[in-house]
């Protein structure tokens, strides 16, 4: 069986098609419904600033989900994430500037470029592991950023490429609320793709490779092709996220794709919790919002104005500190905390899972 039975009693399957259901129990149905309502009401009650934050979170979520597939499930370390985002953004920007291509051409093109780079990024992984793989992907980051920078200076866009908002049926997407729903849909679609990938043959192969390559190979899994597939899928999604980012900002520039961005995405995966899509989402939210919390916290201190100059430094330091604290005290990340809370109530009033006929 590909999926365990739900945690509540009384849900049995009478056909294999029911195995594919993502929402099975009444509690799951109710909470998913409430969550959907909350998400669709949010843009109408939120301030423009909050709306922008939400859009950033969605963009980050797409990127972190794709990195989670590669690192959290297939076990391949990549430090080229910012490079891939840049590749997607520049593909959209160049196609727009050079050919005036509309978004429904640039997005698939970004995906194609991403997939192509994925093969290039992935090839070293067939021979290299761990730190060596990380360094080789880092090299590609610099190549992509260098090429982007060259394009900017050679074509005279040294301050960056300005992109017009995408238009759907002659209607330009400028309204932040529309952007909110566009990005929400993109993030939801990404989540759906990832969910289905990891619970299918592909996802099982990836997890087997992460656990033990030799054993996976002995099980008949084509290591090379599945590793490359992980890079291709992850890179394609990342490049699309980059293109969306370019459209959302209406502006592409190499400065936005520094190595720090890569570190942020790696942080999302680690802080969220390795090997969990929910972790990727939580991590994206946490890392995106974290600087704003720090800022708000500093502003709340007495004599806030005096700290304004050190805000940037404090932010960096706090971010580093949080990373260290998570690695030391909660290696399972935010999702580990969530699972502990969940387990507390799921096992109620017991502490251990001995009494149950449940599968979890």
């Amino acid at each position, binding site marked *: 069986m590909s999926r365990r*039975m739900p945690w509540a*009693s*009384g849900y049995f399957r*009478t056909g294999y098609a029911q195995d594919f259901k993502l929402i099975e129990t009444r509690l799951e149905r109710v909470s998913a419904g409430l969550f959907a309502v909350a998400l669709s009401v949010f843009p109408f009650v939120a301030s423009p600033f909050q709306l922008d934050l939400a859009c950033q979170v969605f963009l980050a979520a797409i990127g972190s989900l794709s990195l989670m597939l590669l690192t959290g499930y297939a076990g391949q370390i990549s430090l080229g994430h910012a490079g891939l985002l840049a590749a997607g953004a520049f593909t959209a920007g160049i196609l727009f500037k050079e050919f005036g291509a509309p978004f429904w051409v640039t997005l698939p093109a970004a995906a194609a470029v991403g997939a192509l780079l994925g093969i290039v990024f992935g090839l070293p992984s067939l021979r290299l592991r761990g730190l060596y793989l990380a360094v080789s992907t880092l090299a590609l980051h610099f190549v992509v950023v260098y090429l982007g920078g060259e394009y900017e200076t050679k074509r005279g866009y040294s301050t960056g490429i300005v992109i017009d908002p995408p238009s759907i049926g002659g209607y330009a997407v400028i309204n932040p609320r529309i952007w909110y729903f566009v990005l929400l849909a993109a993030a939801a679609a990404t989540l759906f793709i990832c969910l289905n990938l990891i619970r299918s043959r592909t996802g099982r192969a990836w997890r087997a490779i992460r656990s033990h390559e030799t054993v996976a190979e002995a099980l008949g899994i084509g290591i090379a092709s599945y590793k490359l597939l992980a890079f291709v899928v992850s890179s394609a999604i990342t490049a699309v996220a980059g293109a969306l980012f370019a459209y959302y900002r209406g502006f592409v520039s190499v400065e936005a794709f520094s190595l720090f961005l890569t570190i942020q995405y790696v942080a999302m995966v680690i802080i969220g919790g390795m090997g969990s899509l929910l972790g990727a989402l939580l991590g994206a939210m946490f890392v995106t919002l974290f600087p704003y919390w720090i800022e708000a916290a500093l502003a709340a201190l007495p004599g806030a104005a005096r700290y304004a100059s050190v805000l940037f430094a404090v932010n960096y330091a706090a971010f580093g500190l949080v990373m260290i604290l998570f690695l030391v005290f909660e290696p399972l990340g935010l999702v580990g905390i969530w699972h502990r809370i969940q387990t507390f109530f799921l096992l109620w009033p017991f502490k*251990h899972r*001995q009494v*149950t006929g449940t599968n979890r």
Partner: protein
Amino acid sequence: MTAPGGSAAAALRRKTAPGLLVEHARTWPDEVAFRAKHLGIYRERTWRKYMELVAGAARAFASLGLGAGDRVAIMGDPCEEWVICDLAAQSLGAITYGIYPTASASELEYQMRDGGAAMFVAENQEYVDKILPIADRLPTLRRIVVIDDSAMFGYEHPQLLRYRDLVAASDASILPWFEEQVSKLAPEAPAFIVYTSGTTGDPKGALITHGKHLAATSNILDIYPTLADKNHRTVVYLPLCHVLGRDIAVTLPLISRLIPHFGEDIEDFTTTLFETAPTLLFTVPRYLQKFASHILVGVINSSAVKRTAYNLAMRVARRHARRRWDGKVSIADSAIYEFCRLVAFKPILNKLGFDQLELVVSGGAPLPAETAALWQIYGVNTVEMYGQTETAGGIISGQRGPFPRPGDVGSVPNGWQVRLSDNGEVLVKSPDLFEGYWNNEEATRAVIGTDGFMHTGDVGEWRGGALRLVDRARDFIVTSGGKTLSPSFIENLLRASPYVAEAVVFGHGRKYLTALIEIDYDTVADWARSRSIAYSGFTSLAQSPEIGRLIKTEIDRTNAELSRVEQIKAFRILPKALDPEEEGEPVTPTRKVKRNLMYVRFKSLVEAMYDDREERLLAGEVAGALKPQGGLI
């Protein structure tokens, strides 16, 4: 469907189970008859499919030469094929009987010889291995059919056949033939034999006819009309060779709206319970006790916050249960109780798959009042019924409920007569009893009196219109002090402890009572682990001094509820688990303890509890030392 009462029973008396199957397949072909889990999926079997499966098996059996009056033995854990083979053989007029999956080799041979089966159906390779060594010594046995042949490598035996091959060729074209076969069945003809568990002597086979079985079983609907009023999910896990198991899996689905669910494997039956969340459950006390003790141990080992919440809820719920038995529940009481149930008990029941239960019926053995009360406190409508193999699938009495006060076995169903003999024995009369014991006229005469009343061998009394069983099978201990005591009463109290799996009380003709205790390995092991007590297995656990002290406190607690003469003065823990599959073990396949055999098997342990030689020896050894020794200093 079937209204309770005399006319319904009379109608059923003229029918057969295969006949009802054909009727159902015609009347509602696409309704679900049962669900059986196979490779993770609960396959839904409609009545039409059910009949096709039975017809296919019947055709195969007929082609093997099985005919009316032949006996078919089926051995194995409950599964859909068990039921299908049973009904298929019945449709040909053959007489079926089940053999306990836990039966030892000698018990198997006895029942094969006694029943004289022409065909042996084995659920899987395990039972093939049991029958093959004795197959050549059984003159009547012609065929062995194995249902699950997944482990059958390199087996070659002229009599051995695979169920899969037999039914492979069957299709819908045989249905007219099948219906004709079924229409030829006489309701008065014997349908099956059920072997009694035999706590005293060899098992006896009770012969039961088609019509009487259906009519008798319908009296369960008279006590529990909900069975016929709405669809109920239930789980099949009790052995099908037992009359209660047959009622649940075969008969009640044909005469009520009970939908049985078969698990993937009997070992996973807790998973099956959880996944299917039955609305109605027939069970034996052992399972209710086991689940309850697991809950209690789970709560004991829980965190302080959770334990406190549970204990608070229990305090409210106990008071509520008492008021409910007295019929004095106010709306406020109910509201508070419902809150407690939601917070504390519902999550527990959900983990077991018990949260949708509307009715739990316990039968087969006496249900300790404490166990029934505990489940009622949790909010599970637990009732007790009382029946015997000889009542042909029907019951002698049952608590109607809802939430009846535990302690009795309820009232007598419509159309049945129960009275007590002068010495208190329960006598029962009905047109639908068993025919007699197979090959045992003498035993039949001993049970069925000339007045048509059947002797149950159980001692009862009336209490406010309800039957209360004082003791089953007239099993008393008379101490040397002349006191007559009921050991099963004391044993039930002992078994109420989560750490005690089985307790056997001795003391006939002795000064005081003693007990042999079998520990509940799971809960005691859990207890030991939580206290970092090292053990390597059952024996080392049973012999650990800490466990001895644990059982001592459990016995002291029981003694506090007993009068002085009833108290257990000494006990020993059995060094091994009782295993019915082992040769000469003092338990029946249903884990009922044979007291006499228990004594024979563990004689030294019992005698040691009465033996005072050791003490005298020790006393002699130290006698001088304890006396004041003047003059030395």
